Every structure is written in C-alpha cells, then in structure tokens.
C-alpha cells in the first residue's frame, strides 16, 4: 500500500489534495464536510477587511472544459469570518486562510487576524484577475509583492503561501519577489470572457472572468515546472486537476501538494476520494512508495 501523505511548508497532510480557494469554502459547515469526505485540508475563500456582496449573478459561466467566474471577491469581512473557521476546524484538519487586499497594511492586518483564528497557514491571493483595484495590480507589481510577503513574515508564524497569477509576462520575476513565502501556489485563473450570441452580451455581469478547469491545466503545468526548475521552492499545484493523472502530472512537474476547485463541478465532493484512489493506484502500479519520490521527476536541463 503506497503512502499518499504529503508535506508542504511544514504542514503534514494525510493526502496531497486541498480544496482550492473560492470553491465551497465560505460556509464553515461546507468546509468541514469537504474534509470529512476526503480533502486533506481546505483553503478558505479569499477574505478582505470589509464585507463585499460581490458581483450580481451571473457570476459563473460554463465554457469548453472549464468555467469562467467573476464572483467579485464576495466575502463577509474578516471580523465575521472567525465563526466559519471555527466550525471548519472541528474537522480536525488544517484550514488555510486566504486573504486579499490592496495595501501592505491591510494584508498584514488580515494575516494576523487569520492567525488568531487558528488557521494552519495563510494564503495570499495576489492574483485575483477580476476585481479592479485588487488582485491583478498587486500581483503584477514585484516590489509591492515583496513588501507584502516580507512584512507578513515578520508578523505571523504559521506558513505563508503566495498564490501567483498566470496573467503576467514574467511570473518568475514575481515568484522571486515572493521568495520569502514558505511555498508558492500556482496558478490562479486565466483572464477570459464568454459571449452569448443569442443575447449578444457577455454572460458574466462583470463581463471579464477567470478561466479555470481542465482548459488551463497545460498552463498550470508549465508554470509549476518552470518555477520549480528556477527556484526549487515548494509548490502547491492548482488548475484543472480532475483525475489522478492530472494530480501526478502536477507532482512530476514539481508540486508537493495540490488544490482542486472546478472539478467539484464535474464530480461533486467525491472528487477528493476519486483522485486519491487514482493516485494510490498509479503509485501501486509503478511501485512508488511515497509521493516525494515523484516530485519534479519530469524536470530536466
């Protein structure tokens, strides 16, 4: 029986699969159930200082092999969110708090609050591509990223994850700016749009949205490979993971752990058990005892 436990930034995970930020993670009871049903950990939806209702629906559109979303960073504000984390923590597994802001001060403030809520890690959403004034701007400004990461690292002791955007000319530059983080999370969604030709309008109320799902898997694999090769740092791979094949592909590209989001649409909550089973089968067939024997094996040159 292979050992599918994983380790990332010092966190021990019973398997490599983590729920991705923004999918089924605003309600504490949902996060708890996701962990009870197979996820090794969850990342909360991205939380800001103030309450935001987000964009009006449609906030989701189905496209070929993926979803477009523009939820608009709906969140109850950090103060209200402790209650949900408390409920989630009753699952007895790690909860990672995702935060977004547009200033260093707010980021630090949010990270400290998250730590007080007893999260096992803080994830920086530097990359949300669909809210003007937030994500995109922060995540493509290397010096701002560096300052955010540096300041937060001074203040919190739980591991810090920097989640980067694929919508940049040069992700390596941003990764280097964020190198004081304990691990990278790659990738966030790719900016896109879908138009309904009968309505003659973009489907999403925000027009632009973030593309996720298997459509972006090759982009995610590319970035995990490239960033692992150039920085050697630990990486959480995310983007289009739907099967054990996808999971192993990310691990071989250099990921130490994985996140799953959009596949919940295709497979429902059982996706975690499904993919873990397929990872296990692959390892048994290939006589691999531990996941870390596979991390980055596809990297050469």
């Amino acid at each position, binding site marked *: 029986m292979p050992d599918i436990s994983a380790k990332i930034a010092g966190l021990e995970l019973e398997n490599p699969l983590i729920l991705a930020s923004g*999918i089924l993670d605003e*309600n504490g009871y949902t996060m708890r159930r996701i962990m009870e049903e197979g996820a090794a950990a969850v990342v909360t939806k991205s939380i800001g200082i103030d309450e935001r209702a987000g964009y009006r629906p449609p*906030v989701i559109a189905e496209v070929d092999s993926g979803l477009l979303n523009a939820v608009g960073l*709906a969140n109850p504000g950090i103060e209200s969110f402790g209650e949900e984390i408390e409920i989630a923590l009753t699952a007895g597994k790690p909860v990672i708090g995702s935060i977004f802001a547009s200033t260093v001060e707010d980021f630090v403030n949010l990270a400290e609050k998250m730590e007080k809520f007893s999260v096992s890690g803080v994830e920086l959403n530097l990359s949300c591509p669909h809210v003007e004034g937030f994500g995109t701007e922060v995540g493509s400004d290397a010096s701002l990223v560096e300052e955010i990461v540096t300041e937060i690292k001074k203040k919190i002791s739980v591991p810090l994850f920097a989640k980067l955007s694929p919508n940049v000319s040069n992700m390596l530059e941003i990764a280097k700016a964020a190198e004081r983080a304990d691990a990278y999370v790659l990738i966030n969604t790719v900016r896109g749009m879908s138009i*309904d030709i*009968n309505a003659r309008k973009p489907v999403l109320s925000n027009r632009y949205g973030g593309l996720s799902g298997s459509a972006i898997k090759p982009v995610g694999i590319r970035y995990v490979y490239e960033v692992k090769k150039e920085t050697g740092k630990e990486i959480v791979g995310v983007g289009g993971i739907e099967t054990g094949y996808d999971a192993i592909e990310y691990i071989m590209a250099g990921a130490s752990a994985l996140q799953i989001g959009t596949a*919940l649409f295709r497979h429902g909550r059982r996706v975690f058990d499904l993919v873990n089973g397929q990872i296990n089968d692959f390892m048994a067939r290939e006589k691999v005892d531990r996941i870390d024997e596979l991390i980055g094996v596809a990297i050469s040159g």
Partner: protein
Amino acid sequence: MICVAVTGKREETPLVSTLYFEWDQIVKPGQFVMVWLPDVGEIPMSLSITEGTKAITVKEYGPTSKALRNLEPGDRLFFRGPYGDSFTPAEGEVLLVGGGTGMASLRPLISLNSSAVVSARNEKELLFDDEFERERIFRVTDDGSAGVKGTPVDQLRSMDLERFSMLYVCGPEKMLKAVHDYLKGRNVKAEFSLERLMKCGIGICDSCSVDGYQLCRDGPVFDIESIGRMREFGVTKLTDSGRRVKI
C-alpha cells in the same frame, strides 16, 4: 445558455405570472433552472410544468424577478439547467403543502391523487388552489381572507396525515421549519424543497449550502430525516457576502 421563446403567459395572482415555453428536455418535479435576464441578473426558478410544454411561475420580488415577469410571448428566455434532484414519486394519496411561490415547484405533482394545503398572505395570493377539486384543497391565509387563518401547521393539526403516503412541502424556510417540527416523530413520510440564495446553481460557490450540502446539487429536495439532522436548517443562513445571519 439555452435560449427559447416565451410561447404563452398567464397571470396567476397580482404579483405572480406563469411563462410557457417549448423545451425538449426531460425534467423532473422539483428541479429548477437558472434564468438569465441579460443586464439584469440571474435567478433560480423551479419548473412549474415538467411534462410537454414547460413553464416557470415567477413572483415579483426584486429587479430580476420583475424583469422576468415582464417578459411577453415572443420574447426570449435564457436559462441553464435543469439542476438539482427531484421529489420521489409516491403511490396512493399524497399531500402537497405549499407556501407562497413554493407552490410553483409542487405544481408538477398535482394529480387525481393529490390534496393540498395552500397558504399565502391573503386570498388573492393563493397559488394554484383552483387546480384542485373542492374536497382536496385546504386554504390557509395570514389574514383569514380565505380558509384557515394562520399557518399551514394550523391546518395540518386538524388533518389525519397518516392516510397520505407522502407529504411534499415547499415554501419559506420558517414555514418549512414549523411544518418539520410538527411532523417530526409522527408516522409520516415527507420531503421538503429548500430555498437559499443560489449564485452558481452547479455546486461551486457555496452560497446555497446547508450543513455542507449544496441545495443546488444535493437538493433542493431532502427527506424529513435529512433536514432534521441539519444544524443550519431554520436557524442561520449566509447572505450574499457570506455573512451568517439568523433566519
């Protein structure tokens, strides 16, 4: 996004209309669609007719439902779906318990074997009560303008429920909670259709979840035992920002 033409319209009550359309798709009672009004919004709507020509029955609450109700025959109707699970068919006599537009999702269950407790604020707002024979319909109004004055539970109290093989219940969560609490422990089978904010309809956004179940995917129909175990049912829900509030 599916695009069809509205083929007919019927005014049901002062604020409620039914829109008819052709859609060649198998749909089961209790399922819903996400209706898109371009430039306005997108909202969940139960199918009020699931066989042959389909229909939705919409009450005007806010901007989106108002825009929807303003559609006329010939206009385009955009939606995606069908989503969600459905009511379990039952043999023998069944009882529908519907509050307000809750009757929309129960309407496909109307048959020669069904009776109904239909409740609304006042007589004018009673929905689909005229679809039943006289001895099969029990009206309940807040103001007593028709039938029993009070809540559906006031009516249920006076009925022998064990003669029904199934109770199907749909309406505001407070009403569902009251009906649930009354039925609990009694020897009846019952299914409840729940309503929450629904942003995505496909089990992704968490806005509709109750106790970790996504109403849009695991529901909206649950049996009485399942909802009895839900800690959030009738107690708290999340707003569109995700803030937890009392129901």
